[in-house]
């Protein structure tokens, strides 16, 4: 494990915890932004530059701006999130579940090294290869995903529009 990974991994987890524990919605959104950027840095490290670009441009760029707009439109500055967070029993249960989950994942991934790492093919994660994946191996998935977007669009329009 190198310093680059540890830096950004800690940053991502720390910002994630900040995101869910922040008292103010806007601070929470900024925490989320940090998570996105840290994840993008990790993707770069994993030789996936295109995914990193997507992460920044789509998540940090587009989705987060939407989130901030929604916060701006829906919440007055005095609104705090404490009311939603006050149920202690859920938090305690959550801590247990998270601990169990982390334990399981750590146990599972500890053996990965013994199994032997598979070397990545040439040009892995490059835009060219992702394009090839998209339009050859996973063409059908790509097409079916468009149906998913269509369904989500219809659902969103129906549910979101007051008078229809």
């Amino acid at each position, binding site marked *: 494990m190198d310093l680059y990974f540890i830096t950004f991994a800690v940053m991502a987890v720390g910002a994630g915890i900040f995101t869910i524990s922040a008292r103010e919605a806007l601070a929470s959104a900024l925490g989320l932004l940090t998570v996105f950027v840290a994840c993008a840095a990790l993707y770069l490290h994993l030789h996936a530059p295109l995914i990193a670009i997507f992460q920044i441009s789509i998540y940090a760029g587009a989705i987060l701006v939407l989130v901030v707009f929604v916060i701006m439109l829906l919440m007055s500055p005095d609104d705090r999130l404490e009311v939603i967070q006050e149920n202690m029993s859920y938090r305690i249960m959550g801590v247990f579940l998270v601990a169990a989950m982390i334990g*399981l994942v750590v146990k*599972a991934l500890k053996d990965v090294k013994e199994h032997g790492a598979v070397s990545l093919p040439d040009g892995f994660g490059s835009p060219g290869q992702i394009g090839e994946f998209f339009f050859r191996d996973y*063409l*059908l998935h790509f097409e*079916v995903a468009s149906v998913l977007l269509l*369904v989500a669009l219809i659902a969103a329009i129906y549910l979101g529009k007051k008078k*229809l």
Partner: protein
Amino acid sequence: MSNLGFSFSLAQLWQVCGGQILLIIAGLALIIADILLLGRDKSSRTGIIGWITIGSLVAIVLHVMFRQWNVEQTGIGGIFSADRFTTFLCAVVIMSGILAALMSLGYLKNNKLPHSEYFILLIFAVYGTVAFIQSVDLLMMFITLEIMSIAVYALAAFIKACRQSQEGAFKYFMLGSFGSAFFLFGMALLYGFTGTVNLSQIAKAISVGGLFHQPAILLALAMLMIGLFFKMAMVPFHMWTPDVYEGSPSVVTGFMATAVKAAAFGVFIKVLFVAFSPLLSTQSGFSATASLVGLEAYWKPVVWWAALLTMFIGNLLAVSQKNVKRMLAYSSVAHAGYMALGILAANAEGRAGILFYLFSYTLMNLGAFGVLYIIDGVERGAQTLGDYKGIGFKYPGLAFLMSLFLVAMAGLPPTADFIAKFYVFSAAIKEGYMLLAALGIMTSVFGLYYYLRVIWMMYMEEPERDVRAGTLTAPTLVAIVVAAIGVIYLGILPEGLATIASAAQAGLAVVF
């Protein structure tokens, strides 16, 4: 997998997923028809769109039954399959879609919800379930799972004026996304380990050198199971069921409890038996996967406990419900537990039993929800047990049909569910799960109590208040009567469907 670009042919695509293509075409045609009909008033527009939906679903189910049944191949580079197991379940979910669409015509009219989007979402939900069942590729499973789920989330929230509908749908959305996340994480782990998302390739990869004993593979299997248990409403992932089933429009609840459950069961059986069991080695010459029998030591205890808890908690909590719809929600949880017995048995009878069960459950559950919405009048008009008191004299026909479906759900002869329960229980007993089968039969006695209690209320009690049932439209009547005849027919002459079901389950191992 990597040669997909070269083996892709339109003829093959049509052969393997003709049903899906027709469903997409129908869905798009509905959107266009909706625009063309803009000039008309809303209720007649919704009616026309509804009838187009029903017509195209009937045509598609015929295509699936008569064309696709005879296709035996995995198509399109190992993404979709068209084996008989898949085709059988596709026919079940499309049938569920037809019954739901027939009832929806009346439901939307009674509740004054003249929105044609309903049918568009319904047909895309059917598309999602069909594609979900057909996929043999975890990534495609995830995408189609989401298509199905998003369409059903929106349908669950369809009564915009009603708080419970919104609340239930939002709970469903949150918990469903959570479940999907587990599915995705499990898939990522498997992909990281095996380098493939195709089920049979995974079976091949993890059987080499006992790789499946690795905690990572087991964790991946567990996560896939969690994701699917959510949709199957197995305990302990059933928490969303009562609120969502109660809040959703009754017909949507019926669709959710049948089509979505059938799809989740089908996919679970596919994932478990194709990728994580030696099934392929016994029938299609993948002899390398025989060692996967060792995995049974891991998943069988889990399914054992899940089945037991599902049967007990579903039946026990149903007893204390005051709302009939909520009671049916818990009963649907309990039914998932009975079906899980067939998975646990892990033999041909068990799988055929589940197919039979899903078919008959679709008929009786949709039938019950169809009667329920008419007695209701408008949604939440008359759903409590108190409202059902004395209905038998005011509405003898409806009460009779309701009694028939409830008797069927309780598993009494001569109805389809008796035969279905018989198949799954005998499959489990054959594999030596005597204790679980005995406990399961015991829980069905609780079931008898709360189902028969409704019938008692309907015929033996004085009415508490004046319940005004909604109008019974012809399409709903047709759907309910067809379901009722099916339930009785399958109870008396089950051999036909049983033969088809056992031929269907054999298809699971032929291709891939």
